[in-house]
């Protein structure tokens, strides 16, 4: 097996699953019924994506672990998602701005992953890029409305952006796993990804009268399994049934 490919696929899968898990918390609690339906669509896409990626990670690893083994029996230090995905859902502005930043990233990432030399990842990316393009349209339009809506919505959206921005650095981090994947033509280069991402998020943020905070420091650690204190609670909730009754079929 390729340890780096396993690690890389796990990162993609964990990002999708933890993001989807947080988003699914909105189901039934959105600001109006139509948005309940909309947000559930995005969460469903993300969970579907996570299933494909984690199943593939299990195959690459070759130890017989499936999507559910990886999702339900790993402890906190073994999770590889970026920190931004695990932060509590906050208010609608926080969720929306986070999702917008991630959708823009995923849109760029998966477009490039369609060209991956790993055929399975390229196949998954083909589906993911269409989904993320729609997600980005949805959250991009919301960012405009929140930023350029009322004084209160602007204040909330700006606060969310200020809080979230330091976490975006982690999306473009490089390390030996990333470098190896780039060298093998499996993953796109992070540097070009960052430029494309900035190019995607800056114009709508500007139109929405939202200011990208300067002078921030990068919040990172997720890729190494160094998570925030929120992660343990998220896992406790998500894994509860499997932990309480280990080894059963559900």
């Amino acid at each position, binding site marked *: 097996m390729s340890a780096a490919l396993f690690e890389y696929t796990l990162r993609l899968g964990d990002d999708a699953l933890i993001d989807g898990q947080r988003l699914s918390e909105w189901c039934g609690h959105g600001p*109006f*019924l*139509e*948005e309940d*339906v*909309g947000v559930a*669509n995005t969460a469903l896409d993300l969970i579907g994506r996570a299933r494909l990626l984690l199943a593939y990670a299990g195959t690459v690893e070759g130890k017989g672990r499936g999507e559910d083994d990886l999702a339900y029996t790993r402890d906190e230090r073994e999770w590889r998602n970026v920190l931004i995905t695990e932060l509590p859902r906050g208010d609608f502005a926080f969720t929306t701005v986070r999702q917008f930043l991630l959708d823009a990233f995923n849109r760029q990432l998966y477009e490039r992953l369609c060209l991956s030399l790993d055929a399975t990842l390229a196949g998954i990316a083909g589906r993911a890029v269409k989904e993320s393009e729609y997600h980005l*349209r*949805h959250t991009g*339009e919301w960012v405009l*409305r929140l930023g350029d809506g009322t004084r*209160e919505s602007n204040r909330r959206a700006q606060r969310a952006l200020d809080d979230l921005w330091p976490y975006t650095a982690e999306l473009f981090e490089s390390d030996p796993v990333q470098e190896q994947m780039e060298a093998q033509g499996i993953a796109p280069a992070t540097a070009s990804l960052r430029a494309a991402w900035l190019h995607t998020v800056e114009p709508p943020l500007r139109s929405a009268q939202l200011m990208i905070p300067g002078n921030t420091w990068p919040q990172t650690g997720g890729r190494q399994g160094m998570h925030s204190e929120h992660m343990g609670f998220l896992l406790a909730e998500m894994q509860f049934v499997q932990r309480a009754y280990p080894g059963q079929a559900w």
Partner: protein
Amino acid sequence: MGKTNQHLPLWEVFIRSKRGLDHKHVGSLHAADAEQAMQYARDTYTRRSEGCSIWIVRSADIHASQAEDSASFFDPADDKVYRHPTFYDIPEDLKI
């Protein structure tokens, strides 16, 4: 800020299920503007691949015929049987 407006307007949704078919009214939804109405129409009314094209229109922009007009609107068409092909007696074996 006093009591501000939080009521999203109503939109009617029309879906074309397949190319070559007409758009058909499927229901309504609430949204602040056309872009969001379009997205919610997609999210709500095409979750199971029901469509390939969507129209949305503000419900307030629809003008409907009135029930009390229906006698004068529609009854006069009833006695114009000559508009229908079955009105004409043509030998059956002819292809017309």
